[in-house]
């Protein structure tokens, strides 16, 4: 059989001999049709319903932010001593979620992990949307958000610069770099698929729009070559970001002297936590996605199994971090540290702490060892959800329980969330899912060209193409 032209797809389909990363029986054409069909087909009622819910939450977010901007940041439940709470928790949580996308698309690309192919596109989209959600929080939680640009080193006529010793300035660079690189990487990856959509679209508007964004992609060898190089370069740039961004975010805490924050274990601990929550989110997105858009052929049970294993692995790092954090608090013999840990476990927020332990350690670490649970979509979805909640609680515990009882007991206080706190938390979910619904509707959730490549490579491995060529 002749090799297939990936662009024209004119060659007849051939049967793939049972590759584990893609269901059998797929050809270049069937892959393209199936994935592009989601985008170019009719809007489904379920989509409208889901989008409506997300959009409502997005409106709630708008309401919350409007109030914050008009009235003041006092709409949050923050106070002295707990000057950071939900907003920063959300920020760290969302940033963390983004990490899995980068890990999958960049890190696993460099590692030549083929199973990343069918999940990397929507995972990358998840990254961008999550970072967008995250980036919003430091801004809305400023006392004077209209002056946010003072954190950037812009040429001010007064010659005033940001204060570069502050981790918040590092954050600005880390997050904006992360967002830029992720967006570029995602877009570069999208270009061949946009061309496919342009070619397949019947609708005039869609043709023009996809055509515009595919930047004149014709699938020439030159294009492919440059695309390949650009992808690899961006992957190379993005890979360190998997580690660096959350490291910098963890500096927000470790640089401070607050007991419970001031800890050298935080950078690796945060990165592991980020990937943990990120994979939980990928699982939570993948399972409905493959179900609703009938993509089970591409996102196979084996994918889910793998992601479950990654969840288990990162979860174990997180568990180790928790244990070490507690151990060091006692081992250091520092009265403030040890009290902080004691207070976390027995103080007013003990219930949150123990829920977090249950969500992040007890439940996932118990069940994820089982192959049957990892391959059971409902169970895996629930466990990923539990871990997601756990990771949010982890950040809450780190931020709030450390702050609320620090050094001077007279200033101890308590944080209670206000309606605005909840509005922006659930509202940010609304924003995320709004964007994700739009993405799933308008862009291919799975990389078409890479799937075609996978089809090819799988067949090659199985010797089908070799045999055919003989």
């Amino acid at each position, binding site marked *: 059989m002749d090799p297939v032209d990936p662009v024209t797809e004119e060659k007849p389909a051939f049967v793939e001999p049972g590759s584990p990363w893609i269901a059998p029986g797929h050809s270049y054409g069937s892959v393209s049709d199936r994935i592009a069909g989601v985008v170019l087909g009719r809007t489904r009622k379920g989509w409208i319903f889901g989008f409506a819910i997300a959009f409502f939450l997005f409106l709630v977010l708008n309401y919350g932010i409007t109030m914050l901007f008009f009235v003041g940041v006092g709409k949050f439940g923050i106070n002295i001593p707990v000057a950071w709470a939900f907003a920063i928790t959300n920020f760290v949580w969302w940033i963390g979620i983004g990490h899995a996308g980068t890990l999958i698309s960049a890190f696993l690309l460099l590692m030549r992990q083929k199973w990343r192919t069918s999940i990397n596109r929507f995972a990358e989209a998840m990254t961008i949307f999550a970072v967008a959600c995250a980036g919003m929080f430091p801004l809305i939680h400023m006392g004077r958000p209209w002056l946010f640009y003072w954190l950037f080193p812009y040429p001010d006529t007064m010659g005033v610069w940001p204060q570069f010793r502050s981790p918040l300035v590092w954050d600005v660079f880390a997050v904006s770099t992360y967002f830029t690189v992720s967006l570029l990487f995602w877009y570069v990856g999208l270009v061949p698929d946009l061309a496919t959509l342009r070619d397949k679209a019947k609708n005039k508007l869609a043709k023009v729009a996809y055509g515009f964004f595919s930047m004149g992609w014709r699938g020439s060898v030159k294009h492919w070559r440059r695309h390949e190089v650009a992808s690899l370069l961006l992957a190379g740039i993005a890979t360190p970001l998997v580690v660096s961004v959350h490291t910098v975010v963890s500096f927000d805490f470790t640089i401070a002297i607050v007991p419970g924050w001031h800890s050298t274990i935080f950078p690796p601990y945060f990165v592991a936590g980020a990937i943990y929550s990120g994979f939980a989110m990928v699982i939570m997105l993948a399972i409905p996605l493959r179900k609703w858009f009938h993509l089970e052929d591409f996102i196979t049970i084996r994918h889910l199994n793998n992601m479950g294993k990654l969840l288990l692995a990162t979860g174990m790092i997180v568990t180790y971090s928790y244990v070490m954090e507690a151990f060091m608090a006692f081992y250091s013999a520092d009265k403030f540290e040890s009290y902080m840990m004691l207070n976390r476990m027995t103080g007013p927020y003990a219930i949150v702490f123990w829920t977090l332990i249950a969500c992040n350690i007890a439940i996932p670490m118990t069940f994820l060892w089982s192959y049957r649970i990892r391959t059971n979509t409902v169970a895996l979805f629930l466990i990923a959800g539990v871990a997601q909640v756990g990771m949010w609680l982890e950040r809450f515990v780190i931020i709030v329980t450390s702050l609320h009882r620090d050094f001077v*007991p007279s200033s101890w206080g308590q944080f209670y969330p206000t309606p605005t706190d909840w509005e922006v938390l659930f509202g940010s979910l609304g924003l995320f899912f709004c964007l994700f619904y739009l993405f799933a509707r308008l862009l291919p959730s799975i990389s078409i060209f890479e799937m075609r490549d996978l089809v090819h490579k799988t067949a090659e491995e199985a010797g089908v193409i070799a045999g055919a060529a003989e």
Partner: protein
Amino acid sequence: MSSKDNDNGRLDLVSIRSKLETDAGKRFWRSLEEVAETEEYKRFLNSEFPYGVEKSRSGMNRRDALKLMGASAALAGLTACTKMPVEKIVPYVNAPEEFVPGKPLFYASAMPWQGVGQGVLVWSFMGRPTKIEGNNDHPGSLGRANIFMQASVLDLYDPDRSQVLIHEGRVGSWSDFLVQVDELRAAHLRNQGAGLRFLTGTVTSPTLGDQLRDLLKQFPQAQWHQYEPLARDNTREGARLAFGEYVETIYKFDQADVIVSLDADFLFTHPAGVRYANDFANKRRVTGPDSKMNRLYAVEATPTITGVQADHRLRLRPSQVEIFARSLAGALGVKVQGLGEASLPNLPSDWLPALVRDLQNHRGSSVIVAGEPQPPAVHALAHAMNAALGNVGKTVVYIDSIEISPTNQTQSFRQLVSDMGSGKVQTLIILGHNPVYTAPADIPFAENLTKVQQRIYLGLYEDETSVLCNWHVPAAHYLESWGDARAYDGTVSTIQPLIAPLYDGKSAYELLTLFQGQPGRTGHTIVHDYWQSQQKQLSPQAFEVQWESWLEKGVIDGTAFQPKQVALRKDLDVTPASSGPQSSGLEIVFIPDPTIWDGSFTNNGWLQELPKPLTKLTWDNAVMVSPATAERLNREMKTVKTQGPGMGPGTGGPWYSPGPTESSKYEVVELSFQGRKVLGPLLVVPGQADDCVVLTLGYGRQRAGRIGTDRGFNAYSIRTAENAWFGSGLEVARTNQRYELVMTQHHFVIGQPSNPREGETVSAFHRDLVRVATLEEYRQNPDFAKDSPDMTTQAQSLYPPYDYSKGYQWGMSIDLNACIGCNACIIACQAENNIAVVGKDQVGRGRPMHWIRVDTYFRGNLDNPEIYHETVPCMQCENAPCEYVCPVGATVHSPEGINEMIYNRCVGTRYCSNNCPYKVRRFNFYLFSDWNTPSLFPLRNPRVTVRSRGVMEKCTYCIQRIRYHEIYAEEEGRKLKDGEVLTACQQTCPTQAIVFGNIRDENSQVAKLKAQSRKYGLLEELNTRPRTTYLAKLWNPNPEIKES
């Protein structure tokens, strides 16, 4: 419009004309407007302009509503942007002398408090009084001020002050009032003043006294009554019981080595509290191991500012204090009648003998002080004991009463009310003090007030009394009026106005002069002429010179009373009036509120938000009980169904955002005392005597203003004249209601200690935040407060160190041994630095704004703990954790070692606050500063930015004061002298616990204090290197007493 309407609406000139014609014989009409009041004209108007009718009836139609909604939505957006008020400036064409824009002037004056003059020095910026400090030349102040003196400037600018003369509930005119007074005067001149009564508070003003005497001469049958809710009747009667006459007692605490307080809060609630605090602290000042300290024994019910300082504090119910006093008097060998044999069951056996030995070892250098709540017999016993110990003439001095007419005020008031009830009073002139609100519950003043035909009330506010009076004359604030008052030792202080009356208010002097038949005399003339008449030997020119020198100093020299020789009555009989105190059941105790006093400061936001000493309660009062009593009540209380609305929830949010929940929701109990009931939230106070319930006065006001109305509960409603301070037979019942109390510090969550080993106050000691020793321990180990060597390593920093070897290096030392926790520094800071008031809800959310706070910690057992105050301003760390985390460089280090805050640059990330281990930073979560109330604008210190929403703020060591003095010193080409720059807190501290200065100068006071071995810094192990350091607390216990 239908023709029918049109018909109806035709201007019915015919009918108007006919109406006029028929009325013409009876009345004049001046204009068509007057005629227009007729029904006919109105009907015409309505039908001609139906749109207008609708408008005037409904107030607003749909279209307007929409317009307004649109506009207000747009405006709501505008208000969110920090708007700067439009302020037109007008330059001086001919600048008045002494007036340098931006440079304050100082005027000496005096504030009458409890009738006694408190010397003040008022800052005036461009003619606006902005801050009150103590007057150095005043014997009662010595340059220091308490919270009431300082906060009184806020009352001056209170937008709720009454601004117009009110007659029968409507705006009246001053000329009408003058006519009315003339008529009254004429009528009473005819009947010799029968039925004419004056009701004042305690009067020490010689001028006002002269006026009143003159009035009583003109109207021989008129009577002058005095009443204040915290009248010092017991003190007066105690002196009369002991000596047969009213005399004033002056205590020389600066010469006393052993002090016994019998329920006396002489450091705070006494009219000379500021002076006594200073004298007391001077005797406790320790400079080295050789220093001596006085020893204070306090016997009291609830921990007061004085009692907390006691080396030995005995918790007794107020009724037991008398038994204690009798035992002590007996043991000291006082021989008076009716002493009897008494013993206290719960008195530690070694206490009394040790105390007696201590007193007898300090004959002539001890003091026994009886507190106002105690009955006259206890005061008499105290006088007798002082005499027996040879203290009279040394530490205890008697002078003539400083009052114009010392009377038993309760009796005087009761007499007035009974006369009112029997219709003997036709005209009642009330000079302030809101008697309707403060009257004892068993003296029906309000009920009988309406039986008086002419009721004239001079008051600062439209309050409970003013609404029941025919005439309410807005009073001039003491900062707006002329006057005089005597200090605790008789020294006359002059009161001079700092500003023209804001609302045309009148002073008491100006009101009385009308009744004297001398209208038109101004306050200045009255006071000036009185003093001129007292100095007849001086020529008018010489008197003017004299007068100006008095005003300049604020006191009239040589007016202090000379010590008076008094002898104990031979027949002194202290037999208890009752058959002995009932020991069963609960005892109710009334105390003045430690922040809003008797209710006269209820509408003062600074004082409402000021955390009360110990409880740290703000914006409310509470039913205070000891831990043991709380447990007992918890077991025994019966539940009652309350009538009426109850107390409401305080504040609190919906279910999904409950706010501070169970820990701040306090159980509301019903108190029944002598048939009267009141509801209040139960609060546990460690260190209070068991089986007594303490209430503070001044809350539960119906008409106080936007700040004070409907806060807390009214303890006056169950306070009787007989039991003005305490009484037995109180019943407490459960109500199943809960009420939120907000505190700035949570000490004990009774019943649910989250972690007993690491309770809040336990860990304060565990963390070495408060360091304490006895004098004996200190002598043996002067370095007890020093950090252990492993904690003092100066760790390395990534960043280059600052150069502290040049210029001034500011630092502060706070002597915990001197600090009495009186809160004066907090109000001083608030006034100096334009600190906003945030309200109960925001305090409850943990957002109070005070830059300096007084932390309270307890040590020892729950029932009778040692209590510590620790004043915490910014530490101005040399290695400040807040600075390096700020992303925009809004908080930076100055070359003088101050951690400076740049509001303009702050974007409000609040990271600095998170990283501040002392949590001294405060954040404007909303636009807390009041940008909308015009009357508050002139109050602000023009040298300090009024912060907008979203910025961090904190103590700056009063940087504006430093810069001001630095600039002037530089102009004069000299260095600043030590003590030239005083921070606001330091300036006002009655005990001089706070000392600030240049630590580079080895001879500065602050450097010397920091060289003491008691010096320690908070959390030095964090390598913050605080510039504010502390001197450890010392106790001087009697070694013979073994505390359990």
